[in-house]
C-alpha cells in the first residue's frame, strides 16, 4: 500500500464504469443536458455549414477556372487618349490578326493563340430563333479554352483565311434551336446569313460570372468581322487569348509576348505599352483564394458559437458539482482518488460535448444539403471538416470540463459528506 504511487493510480481508474456514471447523471437531468448540448449542436452545425458553403464556393470557382481553360493570358489593346482623357483598356485598336499569328509563331512559351472578335446576334433555324453571343476566333480557340467537340469537326486555318460561313454551336444554342434533332450539317441564319453547322461543343456549364458558357456560337474570326459584324478596321482584333505551355511558363510567355508586341508596334523604350498583358489564371486564383479566406472567416465566426456552447457546459458542470457535493463526498469516503473524481466530471462534460457534436454534425450536414437543394448553393462537406468539428467539440468539452472537475476533486471529503 505504501508503495502505491502515482503510476499505480492510472490503471485503477475505471473508464467504462465512469462513463456509465456520467451517462446516468446526464439522463437524470434530460432537459438541462439537452439545453446545454444545444450550444454545442448549434456551434458544430454552424461550423459544418459554413465550411461546406465556403468549400462549395471555392470548388465552384476552381471548376470555373478549369472550364475557362488553364494557363491563360489575355492581351488587350491599349487605352486611347482623347484630349488628355485616357479612355481605358481596349479603347484603342492596336492588336491585329497578324500580331496573333506572330505570337503563335515566335513565342516559344505559348501553346496556342485565339484572336477574338465577339458580338451578339439573333440566329434562326426553321421557325426557331435565339439571341446569343457570337465569338469569332481562330482554330486555336478550342485548345486555348480546353474545349472539346461533342460532335462534328472544328474549323481550320483554311476556313479562317477564306472566311467560310461555318459555325460551331454551344450546347445551349443547339438545344434551343434543334431540340433533340441533330444540328450537324444543318443551315442556320446569323443576321440572315446562312451558316453550316459543322460541330457541336461539349457542355461546359457556368462561368465565374454566372454566364452560361454554352450559350455561344463560334465562327471563324474573319467571317465574324467581314460578314456578321463588319468592322471599320479590317485585321484588328478585340483581344487575343493565349495559352501558355505550362503553369511555370506563364511568366516567360508574358515576357515574350510583351517583348514581341513592343517590337512589332515599334515602341521606343520611353513609350508605354499600347496593349495590356494579363495572367487570367492568376486573377482567377486570387478570386479563389479570397473565397477560401472568406470561408475560413465564416467558419471562425461560427466557431465562436462553439466557444459559447463550451462556456454553457462549464456553467452547467459547475452547478452539477455543487448539486452533487454529497455524492462526491460519498465517493471520496469509499476511496475515490483525485483523478477518479476529475475524470468522472471531465467524461461527463466530454459526453455532453461529443453527443452535441454528433447531433451538430448530422444537423450541419443536413443543413448544407438542404441549402444546396433548396437555395441552389453549391456545398461541399469534406470528411476533414466533419472530423475537425467533432474534434473541436471534444476539445471544448475537455477544456471547459476541466475546471469544474478540478473543483470537484479539491472538495474536502468531510465537508462534502455533510453538505446539505
Amino acid at each position, binding site marked *: *500500500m505504501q508503495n*502505491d504511487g502515482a503510476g499505480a493510480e492510472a490503471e485503477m481508474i475505471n473508464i467504462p464504469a465512469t462513463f456509465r456514471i456520467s451517462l446516468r447523471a446526464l439522463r437524470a437531468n434530460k432537459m438541462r443536458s439537452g439545453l446545454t448540448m444545444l450550444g454545442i449542436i448549434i456551434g458544430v452545425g454552424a461550423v459544418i455549414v459554413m465550411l461546406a458553403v465556403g468549400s462549395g464556393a471555392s470548388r465552384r470557382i476552381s471548376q470555373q477556372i478549369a472550364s475557362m481553360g488553364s494557363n491563360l493570358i489575355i492581351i488587350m489593346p491599349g487605352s486611347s487618349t482623347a484630349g488628355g482623357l485616357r479612355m481605358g483598356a481596349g479603347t484603342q485598336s492596336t492588336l491585329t490578326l497578324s500580331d496573333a499569328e506572330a505570337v503563335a509563331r515566335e513565342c516559344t512559351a505559348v501553346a496556342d493563340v485565339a484572336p477574338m472578335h465577339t458580338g451578339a446576334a439573333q440566329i434562326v433555324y426553321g421557325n426557331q430563333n435565339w439571341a446569343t453571343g457570337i465569338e469569332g476566333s481562330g482554330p486555336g480557340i478550342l485548345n486555348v479554352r480546353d474545349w472539346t467537340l461533342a460532335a462534328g469537326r472544328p474549323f481550320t486555318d483554311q476556313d479562317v483565311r477564306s472566311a467560310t460561313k461555318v459555325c460551331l454551336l454551344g450546347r445551349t444554342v443547339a438545344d434551343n434551336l434543334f431540340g433533340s434533332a441533330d444540328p450537324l450539317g444543318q443551315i442556320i441564319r446569323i443576321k440572315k446569313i446562312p451558316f453550316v453547322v459543322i460541330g457541336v461543343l461539349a457542355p461546359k456549364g457556368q462561368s465565374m460570372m454566372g454566364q452560361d458558357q454554352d450559350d455561344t456560337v463560334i465562327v471563324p474570326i474573319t467571317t465574324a468581322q467581314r460578314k456578321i459584324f463588319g468592322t471599320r478596321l479590317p485585321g484588328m482584333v478585340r483581344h487575343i487569348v493565349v495559352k501558355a505551355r505550362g503553369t511555370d511558363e506563364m511568366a516567360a510567355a508574358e515576357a515574350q509576348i510583351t517583348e514581341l508586341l513592343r517590337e512589332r508596334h515599334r515602341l521606343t523604350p520611353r513609350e508605354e505599352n499600347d496593349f495590356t498583358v494579363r495572367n487570367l489564371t492568376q486573377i482567377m486564383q486570387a478570386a479563389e483564394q479570397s473565397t477560401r479566406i472568406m470561408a475560413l472567416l465564416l467558419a471562425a465566426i461560427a466557431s465562436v458559437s462553439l466557444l459559447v456552447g463550451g462556456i454553457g457546459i462549464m456553467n452547467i458542470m459547475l452547478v452539477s458539482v455543487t448539486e452533487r457535493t454529497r455524492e462526491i463526498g460519498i465517493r471520496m469516503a469509499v*476511496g475515490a482518488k483525485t483523478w477518479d473524481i476529475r475524470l468522472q466530471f471531465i467524461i461527463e462534460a466530454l459526453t455532453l460535448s461529443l453527443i452535441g457534436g454528433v447531433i451538430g454534425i448530422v444537423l450541419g450536414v443536413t443543413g448544407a444539403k438542404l441549402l444546396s437543394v433548396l437555395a441552389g448553393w453549391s456545398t461541399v462537406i469534406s470528411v476533414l471538416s466533419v472530423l475537425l468539428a467533432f474534434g473541436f467539440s471534444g476539445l471544448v468539452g475537455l477544456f471547459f470540463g476541466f475546471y469544474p472537475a478540478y473543483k470537484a476533486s479539491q472538495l474536502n471529503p468531510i465537508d462534502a459528506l455533510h453538505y446539505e
Partner: protein
Amino acid sequence: MALIETDRLSKIYPVGETSVRALDEVSVTVRPGEFVAIMGPSGSGKSTFMNVIGCLDEPTSGGYRLEGVDVGRRDRDALAEIRNRKIGFVFQGFNLLPRTSALENVELPMLYNGIGPKERRRLARASLKMLGLEGREKHHPNQLSGGQQQRVAIARALVNQAPLILADEPTGNLDTKTSVEIMELFVKLNRDAGRTILLVTHEPDIAAFSGRIIRFLDGRVISDEPVRH
C-alpha cells in the same frame, strides 16, 4: 498487534483569533475484533476523532497507526486508498447514491480498486445476500425503508473486506425497532465475522450493544471501560 493506535493525537481548528482544541492528546488503542462505542456530547471531539481514524481528516499533531502503518500525514490520494482498503463507513444519513440501484451502491468501493465488473457484481450480490437483501438488488434507495437503506450501506462497508468498520450514529435516523435490528447485525458481524467496529453514538442503549465504551469530553478521553453484559 493493535488495529488502531493513536499517540497523543491532537486536532486544533483555528477559530478567528483563537483556536479550538477538538482533540487534545488522545491516546487510544483498539485491538482487532473489538466492538467499541465512542460516546460524548456534541462538541466533545468524538466526531473529529472518528474523522481522523477514518482518514477523512489529518491530525494537527500526534501519531496514528492503522494495522501498524503510520497513516498520520499522507496526501489525499494515499488517504483515499487507505479508506478504500482498510475502512468501511456507515453513516447516520445512510449516504447512498440516489438514482442508483442497491447493487451499484454496494459496488461503489470496488470501482476504485480495480476489481473487474463481473467480480464486482458477484461480491456485491454476496454482500447484499449476507445482509438479507436478496431480491432488492435493483431497488433504488428511495424504494427502500430506512432499515433496508442502512443495511445496503453496511453491505457497502463490508464488501471490500475492510478490517475496520466505522459507524457514525448509524441508528440516528431509524426507529427503535429497526435500530435494535441494525445493532444486532453489528453484534453478529463483530462476534461471528470478527469485524472490528468503531461506533459513534450518544444513546446509552445503543452503546450498550458494544463491548467497550470510550467517553469524550472537551477533546479528551474521560473514561474507557468495558461493558458488562
